[in-house]
């Protein structure tokens, strides 16, 4: 139903952003344009400091842009946040340590309650159970492993049924084995709750595993170097890692990254 609307999803058009005092400003985003359709999973990858987080923050309404427009479901970002249409998963879980897991996930419902009308709010308990946290409902974040905490943060972003999910390297603090588990969990859940997702990552396999498209960014100033389609069939399982298509894609993304970083392509 949502996919039918022409404006559904995220539309970033010609966005530029610079930091610093007048006269000594550094351009961080240079005319960036990108669209994420409803139900589409898009990863953003690129060297450190190329402006991935800046772009994500601009879409989240946390940073004003200098020029260009960001629209979410046909609305300005300001209107979209007012309607609670954006779910954010930051780089660290950012849970309230004095609240139980369940109360942490309830937070988005109790904040800005005016925007709760006419939406498909999920049951916090149910969503936590589907993330495999049914036994941890009454625990406190300090009692959970890093991976479990991050899953709580993801549940918190899904629970109020936003149309767009923004994730900034949510798994970067986890060890490699844990990460794979979290990726699959996220993919599983997203499969039955197709939001528009913008997912910032440093990991090439992660980007391929999760995404419909991979946006490779370059730095100085931040720009989109290439957008790579990932035509792997869904639902995906860990078996895709072993396929030839996966390896080809990995080669493609890595060589683009090397070009972006100014190294000789091997």
């Amino acid at each position, binding site marked *: 139903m949502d996919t039918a609307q022409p404006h559904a999803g995220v539309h970033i058009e010609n966005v530029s952003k610079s930091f610093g005092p007048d006269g000594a400003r550094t351009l961080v985003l240079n005319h960036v344009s990108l669209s994420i359709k409803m139900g589409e999973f898009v990863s953003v990858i690129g060297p450190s400091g190329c402006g991935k987080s800046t772009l994500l*923050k601009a879409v*989240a*309404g*946390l940073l004003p842009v200098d020029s260009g427009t960001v629209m979410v479901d046909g609305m300005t970002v300001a209107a979209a*946040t*007012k309607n*609670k249409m*954006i*779910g*954010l998963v*930051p*780089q*660290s879980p*950012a*849970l*309230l*340590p*004095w609240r139980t897991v369940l109360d942490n996930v309830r*937070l*988005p419902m*109790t*904040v*800005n309650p005016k*925007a709760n009308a006419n939406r498909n709010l999920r049951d916090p308990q149910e969503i936590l159970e589907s993330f495999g946290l049914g*036994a*941890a409902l009454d*625990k*406190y*974040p*300090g*009692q*959970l*492993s890093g*991976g*479990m905490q991050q899953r709580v943060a993801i549940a*918190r972003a899904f629970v*109020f049924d936003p149309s767009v999910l*923004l994730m900034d390297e949510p798994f970067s603090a986890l060890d*490699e*084995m*844990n990460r*794979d*588990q979290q990726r699959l969990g996220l993919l599983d859940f997203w499969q039955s709750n197709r939001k528009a997702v913008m997912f910032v990552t440093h990991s090439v396999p992660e980007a391929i595993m999760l995404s419909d498209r991979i946006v490779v960014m370059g730095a100085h100033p931040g720009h989109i170097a290439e957008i790579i389609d990932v035509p792997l069939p869904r639902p995906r399982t*860990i*078996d895709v*890692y*072993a396929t030839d298509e996966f390896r080809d894609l990995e080669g493609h993304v890595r060589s683009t990254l090397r070009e972006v970083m100014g190294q000789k392509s091997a």
Partner: protein
Amino acid sequence: MRKSQKTNLDRSTSDTSALAVQNASSATGRRFSPLATAKLKQNLSWSTWAPAVITFVIAAALWQVTAIANPYVIPTIDQVWLSLINDADTYWKNMLVTGLEVLVGASSGIIAGFILAIIMAEFQIMERAIMPLVVVVMVTPIVAIAPALVVAFGFGMTPKFIVTALVVFFPMLVNSLAGLRDVDDRTLDVMKTLHASRWEIFRDLRFTGSMPYVFAGLRIALPLAIVGAAVAEFVAAGQQAGLGSLVTIAAAQANLPVTWASIALLCLMGVILISMLALVRKRVLWWSDGAAVGR
């Protein structure tokens, strides 16, 4: 294929470890995790408390030896003890007076400091407007302010309340302000994308988040409250007296046992306050003693 096998293996290991965590904490409950029990055991073992006890015993012995050798400089411990027993009534009355000064003065100073910190944290212009004045008042020696207050308010309780509140106010304000400001940026980002109002951010994030700092402030402020009450009594003994007045009067008469008995009671009040604070802190701040928030 190799990769997928690896993942399967890894999944099973992390699953069992998650289960282990679960079992451990569900069996023992939050407040009595195995860690807490171990800590309690450690607190009860002699190696934890014995060093401090030994230090106190040595200090008392040194005191006693010095007191016997110099009878006109300090009293012996048994003289102090006898004075406390014989005049228990007087000491108790004076302790109540000082206690009341500390109670009223400190609680008003604490509340005023915290409320002003909230106002300053929410409205930067208020900080710019009020902070310079606060600093000017706070660098003025309290010992100098006290006599002026006596002139203004007489020898009753009022100047003592004010002096006590004043010394408590500053550490409370500064610490609470730092705590209200120092919230996790990423949690704040999450709140902002939900379009949380300032009130909601205060209610759900800043208020509780500031508590580690507030308790750090209390730890400084409460002992200061006793200093404030005692100093106010030095300056203006008044009809109500109090332990501070007792010290000055007894010292002027060279009555060493009474002087030192009063000092010991002031010290006892401080110990009681700090212990109560530690108990409350444990109940309120159980969540902060990990790496999570605060210092």
